[in-house]
């Protein structure tokens, strides 16, 4: 029976269609998987986002001699806010007192540090423990990842007796803190509660800084040496011009990474779209294959029908053939996917050694969805073509 109905079908043609289906679906799966993997890097709310910029004034000779200031006052911040390119801006509050940090035994390291503070909305990852109320002894700090890297990979390896400490181990270790200011001295404790990829600083809760500035420090009106901007698009040339004209300096790399990211996004979308396009074309080819198969077997179909074969039976003979045929590309995709992913992983290893490509289950559902869709399309068209061809005169 199957031989009667399928005997005239060109195997080569079907194989080609199936290969196209494998290529199309694989392309879609790989790009969507890549997108999901890089989502954190590509999305706009992450650490590397190009939507946040830190600006400061450039340091010139006049600053060195104290004739000019690199701080921003409220009017300047208001001006930055009102230029239409910036969604929001806020200055970093700084400490108006000296801060000395002591690691305690056994390393016994002491260093002068500084604190800054800014609203939560500018910080990428805010741990719930990052709060402080008057009377509490321990001050929580969010530390810049960059700062940690400088310490672990820059400073520590050059110092005998100071071990490299993993990020997680450093968390919640209690350090001693010595605050000295115009209004006296205060001994407190501190701990690192989280890391920030976005802000290169040691950030403490605003409540603490306000309290310490007025109770330990001078309590004068604060100025800001650095300002954080929230912008629509950091790679916008108009913004670059504005910053340059006002003598503000920002991290140029971040602007570049912004445009690079756009390119990666564009590349992935184009790749995904091509995959989708191939899938649609393949489904179309599949429909044409069905039409061809039915019209090639028209005489046989009509004969079998006139002998008493039901349309249902004829449909089943052809349909199951197509289903089996479709299972092959589905299996192929699942076999190919780990191989392709391994290839991509090998490629990524060269410049992102710590990145591990993961395959999410959502992505694995895609081939199954396409498979189900094509089965559905086949069923509808096969039924129609079959009726048309058998019942016509």
């Amino acid at each position, binding site marked *: 029976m199957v031989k*009667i109905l399928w005997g005239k079908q060109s195997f080569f043609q079907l194989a080609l269609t199936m290969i196209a289906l494998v290529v199309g679906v694989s392309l879609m799966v790989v790009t969507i998987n890549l997108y999901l993997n890089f989502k954190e890097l590509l999305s706009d709310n992450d650490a590397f986002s190009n939507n946040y910029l830190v600006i400061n004034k450039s340091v010139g000779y006049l600053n060195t001699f104290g004739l000019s200031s690199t701080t921003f006052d409220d009017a300047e911040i208001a001006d930055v806010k009102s230029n239409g390119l910036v969604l929001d801006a806020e200055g970093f509050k700084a400490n108006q007192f000296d801060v000395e940090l002591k690691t305690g035994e056994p390393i016994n390291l002491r260093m002068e540090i500084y604190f800054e503070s800014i609203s939560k909305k500018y910080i990428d990852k805010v741990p719930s423990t990052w709060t402080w109320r008057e009377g509490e002894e321990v001050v929580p700090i969010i530390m810049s990842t960059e700062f940690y890297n400088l310490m672990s990979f820059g400073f520590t390896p050059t110092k005998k007796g100071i071990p490299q400490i993993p990020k997680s181990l450093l968390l919640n270790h209690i350090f001693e803190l010595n605050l000295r200011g115009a209004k006296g001295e205060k001994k407190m404790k501190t701990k690192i509660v989280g890391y920030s990829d976005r802000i290169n600083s040691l950030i403490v809760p605003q409540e603490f800084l306000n309290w310490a500035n007025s109770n330990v420090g001078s309590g004068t009106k604060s100025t800001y040496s650095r300002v954080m901007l929230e912008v629509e698009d950091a790679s916008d040339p108009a913004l670059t011009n504005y910053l340059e004209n006002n003598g503000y300096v920002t991290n140029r790399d971040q602007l570049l990474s912004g445009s690079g990211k756009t390119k990666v996004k564009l590349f992935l979308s184009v790749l995904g779209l091509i995959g989708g396009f191939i899938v649609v074309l393949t489904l179309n080819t599949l429909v044409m294959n069905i039409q061809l198969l039915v019209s090639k077997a028209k005489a046989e179909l009509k004969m079998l*029908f*006139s*002998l*008493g*074969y*039901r*349309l249902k039976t004829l449909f089943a003979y052809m349909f199951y053939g197509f289903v089996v045929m479709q299972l092959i590309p589905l299996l192929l995709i699942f076999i190919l996917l780990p191989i392709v992913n391994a290839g991509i992983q090998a490629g990524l290893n060269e410049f992102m050694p710590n990145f591990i490509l993961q395959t999410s289950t959502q992505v694995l559902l895609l081939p199954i969805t396409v498979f189900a869709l094509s089965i559905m399309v086949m069923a509808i068209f096969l039924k129609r073509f079959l009726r048309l061809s058998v019942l016509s005169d």
Partner: protein
Amino acid sequence: MQKIVFHKVVPLPIKETFSQQSDVWGKEVAFEQGVNCHVCAPSGTGKTTLSHILCGLRHDYDGEVLLGDVKAKSLSPDQWSALRQTEISIIYQDLKLLEEYSGFENIQIKNRLTNFFTPAEIEAHADQLGIARLLGKACKQMSRGERQRVCILRALSQPFKWLILDEAFSHLDEANTNKAIALINEIAARNKAGVIACNLFEDQHFKYTQKLKL
């Protein structure tokens, strides 16, 4: 179903040309189960159209065909297929054989629907028709008369109440025609079925109790 009734049936292709003297077209006529009927039909009077209407392959006609109490036009294609499996069998004039396949395979394509004959029975009946030695041969290598006999045996490979013969013996000599008639009579009797023989001329192949002119 006990009878097939034609109620003022006129096929659309011969609507303008059909003869008013016809006993079938435009008239009331019944084909009873178990009755042998001869339909004498000169060329162009709609002989093949009649057999195709009887087995549900054509529906382009005015009037009504009633299968028992059921209007034929209300049946779905699959319901008609069911009737062609167990109620109505037909020996097509154009044979409708798969040329690439052997005589045995062609018969089995029909027989497997109802498993009416065992392979041994098929061989025995083929022997009665004189085509036992040809069963393994591809149909395209057979003569027209041999193919016609394969076709006859294929039509008998199912339960039926009516057997429609559309010029079933046109390529057979007298001796082979008689062998075929003997076999048809034997199996029709077993099925309590009648034949509806459509032919260009009058013939004496079966004991007809009903004679119609198209």
